């Protein structure tokens, strides 16, 4: 049941997702508290990424994907309403993908692109400030300030991912979705992204899909465990990783799944 409580950045209920006849999400209800990090965990094929992609309508482009349910942004905006433009929604709900995917453009243009097309900056100076501020928040500015006109694909994997986070931040979203953002990164780059997630939570609500149990336990305050399209358990991360209520959750996080 979705209520009007605006302590949640996003509330979902009665969510069903089908790929053709195959059910991917089965009656899931999950709310995301503002300015907190929520991890979605579960084995491959459990539906966690499918669920994440529902939250900014990424599944719209998949013809056979049928999404049903209630999705409320800030307690009152139905994100699947015909009145909602997908582009407008994605201004509010940004996304960072598994593999860093910078545009084949300069570092500057990568970050400036979103604010430009969404008309966020009213002058070149303002745009410059947004780019600088976003790179700062993503912890990348000091590393790239002298080469803003270099092609972004020349950056290291970790830097590229932080650039993608800067790009997501630049359009001033309220929520950032992250789909295994560190799976292609080494431990140092992963640590930097996790540090960044800890800092970003002050201003954004973050929902992260991860296969790494230790990452979920390090970065999130809430954890949701999915299995076969069902939400098995949701709760405080500390509790999930010490004394989960469900045996299925215990089996998964301890590596006894099979």
């Amino acid at each position: 049941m979705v209520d009007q409580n605006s302590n949640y950045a996003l509330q979902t209920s009665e969510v069903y997702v089908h790929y053709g006849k195959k059910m991917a999400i089965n009656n899931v209800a999950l709310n995301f508290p503002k300015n907190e990090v929520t991890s979605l965990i579960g084995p491959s094929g459990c539906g966690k990424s499918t669920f994440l992609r529902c939250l900014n309508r990424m599944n719209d482009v998949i013809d056979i994907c049928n999404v049903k349910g209630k999705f409320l942004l800030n307690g009152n905006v139905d994100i699947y309403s015909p009145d909602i433009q997908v582009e407008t929604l994605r201004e509010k709900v940004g996304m960072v993908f598994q593999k860093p995917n910078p545009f084949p453009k300069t570092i500057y243009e990568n970050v400036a692109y979103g604010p430009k097309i969404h008309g966020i900056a009213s002058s070149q100076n303002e745009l410059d400030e947004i780019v600088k501020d976003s790179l700062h928040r993503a912890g990348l500015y000091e590393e790239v300030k002298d080469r803003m006109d270099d092609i972004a694909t020349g950056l290291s994997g970790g830097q590229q991912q932080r650039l993608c986070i800067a790009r997501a931040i630049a359009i001033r979203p309220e929520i950032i979705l992250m789909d295994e953002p560190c799976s292609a990164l080494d431990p140092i780059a992963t640590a930097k992204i996790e540090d960044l997630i800890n800092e970003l939570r002050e201003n954004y609500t973050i929902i992260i899909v991860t296969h790494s149990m230790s990452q979920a336990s390090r970065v999130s305050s809430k954890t949701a465990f999915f299995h076969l399209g069902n939400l098995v358990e949701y709760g405080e991360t500390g509790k999930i990783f010490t004394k989960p209520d469900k045996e299925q959750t215990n089996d998964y996080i301890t590596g006894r799944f099979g």
Partner: protein
Amino acid sequence: METAHTDKNFEQKLNHLTDNLIKMSNIVEKQIEIAVNVIKSKDSSDAQTTQNLDEQVDEVERDVRDLSFEIMTLHRPVASDLRLVFTALKVSKELERMGDHSRNLAKRAISISSSFDEDLTDQMHNLGKGVQKMVNQTLESFFKKDEVQARISWNQDAEIDRQYKSLLSDLIERMHNKETSVVDEGTKPILIAKSLERIGDHATNIAEEVIFNITGHYIDLKKSDFE
């Protein structure tokens, strides 16, 4: 029945950890049994055996500690696995202390004169038998993951304490009455009784760890829980 781990190496180490605790429990139970018998037999070679067994206990405790450290470092256990490692470390410490008390009480028992009061000797021996039973049931509850049994064992400590206090007041009264056989032994019988009472306390601590291992919660155990 717990599902098998997908990481066989991790599974083996967890099993090895439990095996070490079983081994340690068996040695400590043996130590307690021998020490309690020494109260009556005053057999110095048995007392020496408790000393020898103590060295084995210390060795297994080190193994438990090292293996727990390795598991935590290499496998980052969570949930029930984490609780097992945590419990293993604490239970092994309690067992090690039980072993020390057994060794000490056996050493003191052989130094007490054979002419020492028979009734008091029987009381000490009975206290020891009660403690022995409590330890056995507590350890069984750990390995069988039996919360109900752990609670029953925990409750037995009240009876151990009652027997200990009764023995103590008897000893003190006879000292007041200047009964030579009691006065001559000084504090030795008191220290033996105290060692037995402390073993009971360590068993109580283990029972609490058993409940934590099973439930994930440290329960505020009160007598009223069992009434």
